[in-house]
């Protein structure tokens, strides 16, 4: 399996290398769909210039990267193209290995369940075969590397690619069962963009499951492990933040990065939901609605982790998708990360209901973004409402996609316990309805 992966990597790198040299790169570096104020390459360059001049890069309101990123690029600025390509490669390989391991686990569990005769008799067609699971890791890598969204994001040198790599490494170390590494990568991811904080829960659940510790509030072992993992996480977060402080000798980065993410002062249009709302809103409602919008990202963690506590990897997928939909400065790079997971849920395909609709919506919206941007900004004939309408539709499409997968997953689990052909009490055929 290493050979196809290498081939995919080579193809992906070739495409990126060609595009880096083409005029498309200059175009993409400005596109609001691909770069946000948080991860635009131009801003990184500006920050580096300030740093070289001996000025704090956070003076002024241009630079919003974390200190670690600026120091990374301080050393590798000449090889920036390569760094971004390598980051994409790392993400793909990490996801590949993670999914491979996860699939092994799934298959093992399924075998035990089969041996224990726990599935209803008519559910055999829901059982997953090694044959169909064999190519899934490769498909994941393929989906990530050849997704136009990832390619655009990489060619525009959006630092979103680096964040994706960190999250992918976190997923890999979690699935491989290394609590310490998982905590460290989670801390780095949180440090980079706060929102991955919500991935703490699925990571914890996965490791508990791996160590056969039941999730019960009355068990000391549960509390012991939670405390252990949380302290590793908080400890490394603390170390990284302090390290950043010592690198720049100032706390400026806290308001400039995290304040910027949470209070959303920059209302440049993007594919997210924030900009239009807060551009239109009266100033005195702003704080309240900022809270409402931001809680949106974090709040779903609770119901989802209750519902999906047996399936932490699916929970992780849901969380990443929710983050990329509801975060304050989303770009297409964020979307590509959760889209890479779609092949893992191939077996849910038969239960998906709106995939055609969603695919059409996402396709049409992706084509309409640049068109409406052109009409609004260059031709001056359309206005922001047109663009926002498409943003809204795009996000509705994403939400439908995620909820469709959620429904399909739950439905499959339901069938695995209750049998595939449900009967009503009177014996007629029943259908499941989500209300």
């Amino acid at each position, binding site marked *: 399996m290493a050979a196809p992966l290498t081939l995919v990597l080579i193809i992906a790198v070739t495409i990126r290398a060609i595009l880096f040299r083409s005029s498309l790169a200059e175009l993409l570096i400005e596109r609001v769909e691909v770069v946000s104020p948080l991860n635009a390459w131009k801003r990184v360059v500006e920050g580096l210039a300030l740093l070289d001049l001996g000025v704090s890069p956070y003076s002024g309101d241009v630079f919003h990267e974390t200190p670690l990123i600026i120091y990374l690029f301080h050393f590798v600025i000449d090889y920036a193209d390569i760094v971004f390509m390598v980051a994409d490669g790392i993400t793909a390989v990490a996801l590949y290995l993670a999914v491979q391991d996860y699939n092994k686990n799934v298959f093992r569990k399924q075998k035990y369940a089969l041996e224990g005769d726990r599935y209803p008799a008519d559910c055999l067609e829901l059982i997953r075969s090694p044959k169909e699971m064999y190519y899934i890791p490769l498909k994941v890598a393929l989906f990530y590397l050849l997704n136009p969204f990832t390619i655009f994001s990489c060619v525009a040198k959006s630092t979103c690619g680096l964040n994706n790599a960190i999250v992918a490494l976190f997923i890999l170390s979690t699935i491989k069962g290394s609590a310490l590494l998982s905590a460290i990568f989670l801390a780095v991811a949180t440090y980079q963009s706060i929102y991955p904080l919500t991935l703490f829960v699925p990571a914890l659940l996965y490791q508990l499951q791996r160590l056969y510790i039941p999730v019960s509030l009355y068990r000391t072992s549960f509390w012991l492990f939670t405390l252990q993992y949380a302290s590793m996480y908080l400890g490394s977060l603390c170390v990284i933040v302090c390290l950043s402080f010592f690198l720049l000798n100032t706390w400026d980065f806290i308001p400039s990065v995290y304040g910027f993410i949470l209070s959303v002062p920059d209302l440049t249009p993007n594919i997210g939901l924030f900009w239009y709302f807060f551009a239109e809103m009266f100033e005195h409602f702003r704080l309240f609605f900022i809270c409402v919008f931001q809680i949106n990202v974090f709040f779903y963690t609770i119901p989802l982790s209750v519902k999906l506590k047996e399936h932490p990897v699916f929970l992780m997928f849901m969380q990443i998708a929710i983050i990329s939909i509801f975060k304050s400065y989303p770009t297409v790079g964020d979307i590509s990360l959760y889209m890479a997971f779609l092949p893992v849920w191939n077996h849910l395909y038969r239960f998906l209901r709106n995939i055609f609709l969603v695919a059409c919506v996402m*396709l*049409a919206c992706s084509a309409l973004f640049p068109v409406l941007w052109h009409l609004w900004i260059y031709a001056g004939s359309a206005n922001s409402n047109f663009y926002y309408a498409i943003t809204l539709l795009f996000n509705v499409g994403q939400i439908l996609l995620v909820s469709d997968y959620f429904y399909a997953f739950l439905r499959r689990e339901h069938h695995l316990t209750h049998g595939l052909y449900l009967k009503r009490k009177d014996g007629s055929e029943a259908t499941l309805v989500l209300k």
Partner: protein
Amino acid sequence: MGLLSDPNRRRALTTLLTRLNTPLCVVCYLAGVAWFMGLAFQPFTLRTYMSENAMGSTMVEEHFPAGERALAMGREFSAHKKQAGGMPVDWLVKAMQAKGLEVFTQSFSRTLPFPDENKERYMVRGTNVYGILRAPRAPRTESLVFSAPCSPQGNDQAVGLLLGLAQYFRGQIYWAKDIIFLVNEHDLIGMQAWLEGYHHTNSTGMSWTPLHGRGGSIQAALTLELSSDVITSLDLVLEGLNGQLPNLDLANLFYAFCQKINVLCTIQGKLQRNDWDSVAGYSHAVQTMLLMVLKQASGRPWGDHGLFLRYHVEAATIRGINSFRQYKTDATTVGRLIEGMYRKLNNLLERLHQSYFFYLLPSLSHFVSIGYYMPAFGLLILIPLLRALDLWVQLEGAAPAAVDGLVDGEQPSSPGFLSVMTPVVISHLTGVALYTLPVLAQQAAVEHFPVSETEAVVLTAIAIYTAGLALPHNTHRVLSGQGTEEGWRVLKLVAVLYMAVLLACTALINFSLGFILALTLVPVAAFITPHVPRIPSALAMVLLSPACTLLFSVFVYQELQETPVSLLDGWSLFLSVISQGILDHNLYGSLVYPLISLLVYPCWLLLWNILFWK
């Protein structure tokens, strides 16, 4: 959410949509066409009204007295032009300086990719002369442009009037915006050079000398074309590059002043009629609107104003027409009309933005806004979507994991990714060839065939277009053996969705182009399968292909202009339209040619491929 989550209701809806698919498509098409034709019916349109407060309620008076002097100046200009054999730069600079303007010149040169036979030019070299009247009343942050092209055939009266107005404007104290008086040579090429120089951009690889003087940001621009001393009516030209239109308030302003000064005004060369309830009146409105649609769809600038729109400047061309009518208007009146329009534009506090940017005009006093005409397009675009839904349901049905995931059986091998991708890639490569080869290969073509460069370009384009019909079909068989029943369904699904997205994007940028393409492409997309009788369908497809659409448009346009042409003349006109389209793309960056060759034509080839699927 009920519809999206309740499987029973969904099933009911999908069966309804699939069973009634064909009738629904036919109804949608007819309804779309009927809606569009209904747009010209006066009760369904809105009256134009001035939205901009700064131009609406304020009163201005027009006093321009010196029409005769302006015409004399025009005659002098004409004499000097003849003498210099082009733009009389020195004379014009002196004349403008004498009027008290700050005068600057800009020279430019441009080699066309191939000779333009309509205007007989290849290596273009020229000079623009412009004078700036500085605003006495305000900081010089905004400006208005008044331009008159210097062309070999006439238009001297316009230049004369421009000079006369400059002299008169100089004496007035109320100007709050700089007024730039521009005389541009070689019509659009000169205008392009001047605009690029003014805005420090270079999008088309033209070489020009930088401008030494500039006013503030340009708020609005008018171009005047006059070729006789007296006129019977004034025609307003709005269609700009890529079908962009200026804000409707500019048209309203023109209309309001024509009413006030009592000048006959036309649009698309058609006078307004009052008998909207008669058949003749309605057909007159339809003709006017269709002319606008055809002109807009062509994507070319129909006057020198057309390039301003790209820079976010509202602009229009006013064209004086002298016909056999009794009632004549003299140059003084035209001057007063323009004076009035500039005084109102001078009052603007911000750019024109209040009124509509997306509209169609069945007459100058009535307009159709985007909200009214988009449903016509929406109905057409619904057809490919319905078809796509139908195909999706069929594909789902063919795969055993059917409705609601409850049917068992082994998944058959799905049609190979390759068998679908190959036609897509090959069609697009043909498109790329159509886009690049005509201009690249002209040298070789001229050497080997007895044709001129222009003919070489056009004929190469047509040759590649025709060769494309023979090339891509059945390519999938080379790779994946026999094409399957599912193969063409998947390919058609891809093609139909592709077309829907493509047409939707086109219609947003240029409604007319999108609508005309939808009118011809949508029926093709709807009916084509490998099982329809091959020869008549192939004939129908060719007749509805993008090139034939263009041919029909040429004939319809001539018909509507009331200058019908014979078949042979129509054909030569068709050839010149193609060469103009390629030139427009190369010179001004018009997007129609690349759109057709890189996207629409490959999309049509995909459908062609399906017809010959075996």
